[in-house]
Structures are given as C-alpha cells and as structure tokens.
C-alpha cells in the first residue's frame, strides 16, 4: 500500500534507508478518531522544518527566498495544538495521505497497527535508458497503535495522555532537526527540482513522499500484551 506525494521511479518496495539516510521512528498509541490529528501533527511539524519559501533565481546564480507563514492548529480529539506551514496545498496533500492511512487501518481488520512514513529524497538523474534514482536522505516513520476505549472517562484520559505524548514527539522531532546533519546542498536553478518540490505555489518543501503499511495481525499473545500496556498507561 503506497501513497506517493510525488511520482518517482525505481523506488524499492519498502522505503529502506540508504546508507547516509537517517531514520527516525516515533510511536504513538491513539484512539481511532485521534489517528488523523496525531499523524497530521507529526507530519506538519516535520514539514515545517523541511520547507522553505519559494526560490526565485536571479542572474549569476543567486536566488531569493519567499516567506513561509505559519498557523496554529487545534486538535478536536486531542488536548493538543501544533504549528503548521501556511499552505493549503500542503495541508491538503497531507490530509489526503493521512485519510487513506486511517481508512486502511480501519478496514484492514487488523488489530489497528500500522505505520506511516515520510521520506525526504533527492533525485539523481541517470542517463538514458536508466530512469532517475530517488535517494532518500531522511526517513520518518510513525508507528501507530489504535486502541479501543470502553467508556467516556477513559476517552477523556486518552485525550490528555495522547496530548502529552505528542508534546514529547514534537520535542523529539525538534531535537533531530537541531542536529544539523546532512541536508541537500542548495541547488542551482537547473537542479532545484531534484531537491525541492516546486509544485506548490506558496512554499517549497524538500522532495518528499508518504507511504504506509498496515501491520498484519500478529499472534494473540503479542496483541494482548500491547493492549495491557496501553491500559496500564491509561490507568490513573
């Protein structure tokens, strides 16, 4: 099951990190109705850091950069708020991907476990007849476990707990961003589409693609253990 934000070719069936691609994994346990907001919060936070203003190339290889606006988003099902880039196109793209992921989770009949991945890649042009290569340089994976809650009180606690967990995730993401590790070189005008997604009209994220997988039902014992763990953390 794949969702591609951008068409790319010669993508391995699994988004496996290449040698110098760093990979970060985040895990959350949420209620079904919280899946979308939790995923959007994480994805938007990552993309906030991985988007710039639109480049405007001028003579002599210099360029100027547009301005990125931001806005606060309140979650309805989680006691949480996050900041995203002010770009309706980007928001729509993410919502579409997350919507598909959520539907797949619901319909899969699995125990509600899956993962969604956000991969940043660079395109490397190859000579004919070979197609271009996509080389990932950063991979974010969010592992999701959907829990079912019995009553309203548990749901209220879940709202708060998931909110707190997401706060931790945001801090984790910011920590990774702060490492200032590999970032693609700023491209020349002819190369810009190999590094950035220039299709949006107001912002310019690095080239990215989103994919997801639904985990098959595991053995009962594992599932029960997971459930018990969740219940324990939710208990007062």
């Amino acid at each position, binding site marked *: 099951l794949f969702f591609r934000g951008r068409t790319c070719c010669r993508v391995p069936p699994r988004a496996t990190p290449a040698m110098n691609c760093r990979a970060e994994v985040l895990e959350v346990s949420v209620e079904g109705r919280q899946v979308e907001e939790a995923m959007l919060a994480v994805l938007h*936070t990552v993309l*906030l*850091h991985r988007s*710039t*203003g*639109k480049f*405007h190339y001028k003579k002599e290889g210099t360029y*100027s*950069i*547009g*301005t*990125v*606006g*931001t*806005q*606060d988003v*309140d979650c309805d099902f989680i*006691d949480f*708020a*996050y*900041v995203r*880039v*002010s*770009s309706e196109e980007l928001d729509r793209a993410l919502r579409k991907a997350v919507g598909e992921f959520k539907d797949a989770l619901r319909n899969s009949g699995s125990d509600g476990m899956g993962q969604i991945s956000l991969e940043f890649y660079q395109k490397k042009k190859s000579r004919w007849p070979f197609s271009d290569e996509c080389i990932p340089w950063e991979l974010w994976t969010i592992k999701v476990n959907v829990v079912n809650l019995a009553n309203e009180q548990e749901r209220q606690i879940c709202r708060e707990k998931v909110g707190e967990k*997401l*706060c931790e995730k*945001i*801090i984790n*993401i*910011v*920590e990774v*961003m*702060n490492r*200032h590790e590999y970032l693609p070189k*700023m491209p020349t005008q002819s190369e810009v589409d190999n590094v950035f997604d220039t299709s949006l*009209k*107001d*912002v310019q994220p690095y080239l990215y693609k989103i994919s997801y997988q639904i985990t098959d039902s595991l053995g009962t014992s594992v599932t029960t253990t997971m459930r018990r763990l969740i219940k324990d953390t939710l208990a007062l």
Partner: protein
Amino acid sequence: AMDTDLSSQDRKDLDKFIKFFALKTVQVIVQARLGEKICTRSSSSPTGSDWFNLAIKDIPEVTHEAKKALAGQLPAVGRSMCVEISLKTSEGDSMELEIWCLEMNEKCDKEIKVSYTVYNRLSLLLKSLLAITRVTPAYRLSRKQGHEYVILYRIYFGEVQLSGLGEGFQTVRVGTVGTPVGTITLSCAYRINLAFMSTRQFERTPPIMGIIIDHFVDRPYPSSSPMHACNYRAGEDNGAVYPSVEDSQEVCTTSFSTSPPSQCVFTVTKAHFQTPPPVVTDTLKVPVMGLAFSHQLSSSRLSYQPAALGVGSADMGYPVLFAGGLNAAHPHQLIAPGKEGGVPPIPGQPAHGTQADQERMCTPLDGVHYSAATPSSSEDTETVSNSSEGKCGSPHDLLETIFIRKVGAFVNKPINQVTMANLDIPFAMFAPKNVELEDNDPMVNPPDSPDTESPLQGSLHSEGSSGSSTGNTHDDFVMIDFKPAFSKDDILPMDLGTFYREFQNPPQLSSLSIDIGAQSMAEDLDSLPEKLAVHEKNVKEFDAFVETLQ
C-alpha cells in the same frame, strides 16, 4: 590565523542576524502566550522585510521592550536574553511559569558561513521555537487566560534567574546554532509544579456579576473561543487566514487581557512612534491627567509607584497599560507605544538583569501635556514625578503615552476606588462624586453601624430594606443565579454567595437621604464660595481637559 578571522562584513552581518534573531525570538514567545491562535500568510515573493524567511509579526511594544532590555547589546557569554512568562491571578498572586533563555557560549565554529548557513539555521531554530512554544504547559494555560488569571511577560538581559520556577523545573532545548563568535543556544526552563493549577480549574466560568462592561467592546464573551486580540472580527473562526501584517495598517494587540470584554487595547500606526499619538479604535482614549480635576486626585491617586499598580496591590487586579520600564516584581502586560528609539525614560540602562529589578515605571506623560497649560497643576505633576522616585528623568523625556485601562472582571470594588484617571469608561468625568479621597469614601471606611455581634451577620440586608424606603432601587439588577468563583466555607460561617446577597443592598448614603440633605443645605450654601474658589483655581485644568474632548 588570519584567514579564519571573520571579515568585517561577515561580522556586521552576524551581529545583525543575532540582533534580529533575538527580537524575533521574543515575538514568537510572547505571541505564543497571548492566548490566541496565531496565523500568518506565506508569500512566494520575498518582501525583503521578513527576517529569516518567516512571517513573524512584530508587535511594536514587544520589540520596544526587547530593545530596551538589550540596550544595544547582543547576547554574549554571561549575558543572556531571557523572556520570563508568569501567571497572575485575579487576587494578585503570581507565579513564574517559564524562562526562555537565549544564550551564547564560547564554542565557536570558525568554518561556518555566516550569510548562508548561519542564517538558514537561525531560521530553522525559529521554526523549532514556534513548535516548542506550543508544547510546554504554559501554552495551554495561556489559551485559557482571561477570567481568573492572565499571563504576563518580562524581558531581561543578563544572568538567567531560574529560582522562581519552583523545585524540579524541567528544561527543554529548542536548539543551537554555531557561529564564528560562539554558539547560540535557545532553551526553556519551565515549572512543572502546577499541581494546584491544573487547567481544569480554569475552565471558563461566567464573568462575575457586576463587572463593568466596556461599552466599546460589543461582543459578549464567548464561552468556548479563546481570548482575542482587538483585531478579532466577529465571525472569523478557526482556520481563517488572517492577513499578514503587511496588509494591515495597524497592529492592534492585547498581550494579556484581564477579563472577557475588557481588554487593554490600543492601536499604533505602522510608522511606529514618529507619528502623532496612536489612534485608539476600540476604546475611549482617556488622557490621564485630564480627569484629574481635583488637586487631591492628582497627588494621591496618580501614583505610579509599583505599589499602586500591578502585582501585590489590592486595588489592581487587572493589567495595566503604561509606558516605560518595569519593576521586576511587576511584569508588564502591555506597553503603550513610546517614542521608538527615543531617549529611554529610564536613565542608565543596567547591564545586568538583576538591575532590571530597579527599573521603575515612568509616569505616563499626559500629565506633562497639561502641566504646560495649567500652571496651577504644575505642582501636581511634580508630585507625580517625585512620587516615581525621580528615576524617570525629566518630564520631557517621558514617553508620550495614552494611558488606557479598562476595568476588568477582577475589579470588585466600585468605581470610587479606582483611580479615576485610569478608568476607561465613557463619560467617566460624569461619574458621580468619585473624586473624594479614599478617607471620605464610605465604601472604604463604612460608617460605624450597625452594631451587632457579628458584622457579617448584622442584617445589613434589613437595614438596606428599611433604607430603601428612600427609594433605593437596586431592582434594575436582579441576580438570578450567583455562582461565585473560588467560594468556599473556610473562616466565615457563610459563603461568598450569601455574603454577596447580604451586602447586595447596602444602606443609602446618609448624605443622600433627604432629612440630612435639608439640614446641610445651609452648610452647602455656605461652602459654595470656597468650592468655587477651588474650582476657579483649577480652571485651566478644566479647560485643557475640555479641549481634549474636542
């Protein structure tokens, strides 16, 4: 080696970057604690004025405060810029919630390119700051401020002081950026001992009955939406994209408002402080001294010493808009626009944050306007200046300020006890008999009656009803249901609700009852010449005040 030294252009650029980074950092933090959702627009064409390629609005007085705190310096080793976020309840209790620290350490990265890499990393760091400011506990508290508490900010420069955060405070690092002159680090230390202040305790409650609703803010307090800045437009809701600051001619803001309909509001033009005094859109501009048509008022009431304003004062449970510096004990909530870049009213900007404690507020300056026109009141303004402990420099240095404050929900005393000059109610000058000294104020020093065992159980209520035969009509205000906040039975045998009901109808003022009135008529007539003399003495003040109304 010479080749690793920073070129002078790079050095200049770096200093500029760091300066504007500091200013933007303050903006992001303060805006994240306004209690409302922030929204700025992306723009594909560079405007040239958006530092770090991010659309971060500049609230003028926040910039002003930050520049004042920095006083032309930049963060350096041992000299950090700190933004302190605190909470203040309606009863005047305050508590530090967070300290955001922008620090510089000695670890230099000589290889890094200033104009490119440092700039982009600073931009990234600001994005991280945007994200992190939403995940500390104070964010949720700040979104719910307004009724029982407000959120305040204070900027200081120098040594970081974390002692006010209580035990076990936690730290979150926002990020670091290496530069050739040192490594910039941005972090937040936040209190976690908020146990007695769970956000649930501050769910919206209906305003306490009897507050003075500001006539100029026509929206009722919505029960579920966050507090708004004065640029809130009815009907706009979540998800609305606000015009970026370039579009609007005015930056209208209230950092922290005390109560739902009452907010400290003002408007400034984009030209900042070069232009004529700010035009206030949402509220009546009340010149401070204009209402001071009583000698006693100006000297006793117009005191801007810390004790009279801000934290710790029983009178002032609401935010105060004033210009100038700040006592450490009284973090300000909003600063009126002053002369940008003009002579700061606080002489001798301290180099260290500890001296920020000694910063004094400057007296608002409208008094100065009138001192020229009213020689008779020059004495008054001197009193005022002196009362501010002379730290505010000469009157002409003081900022041109419109002092605006609205009475808020926390005011549980009648108008009489609020400084007339600070009231932002329409036609305040026509409010009856408010200019007496507190001593003469029967509400402060109630007459010694009735004599019962327990003053509270004394049936003032019945007194009131007997006194109401004189036409005491409090019936226009019928209390249907009263759920007093924070009411509980502890010391007294009755609760706040009962207390309120008991004292809802105080007895008539004796001076208003007819019998006494008839007696003192003669006295009144006798005292007329005296009163006329006093008024005549102040005639220039009156004239000047009348002029402001035209």
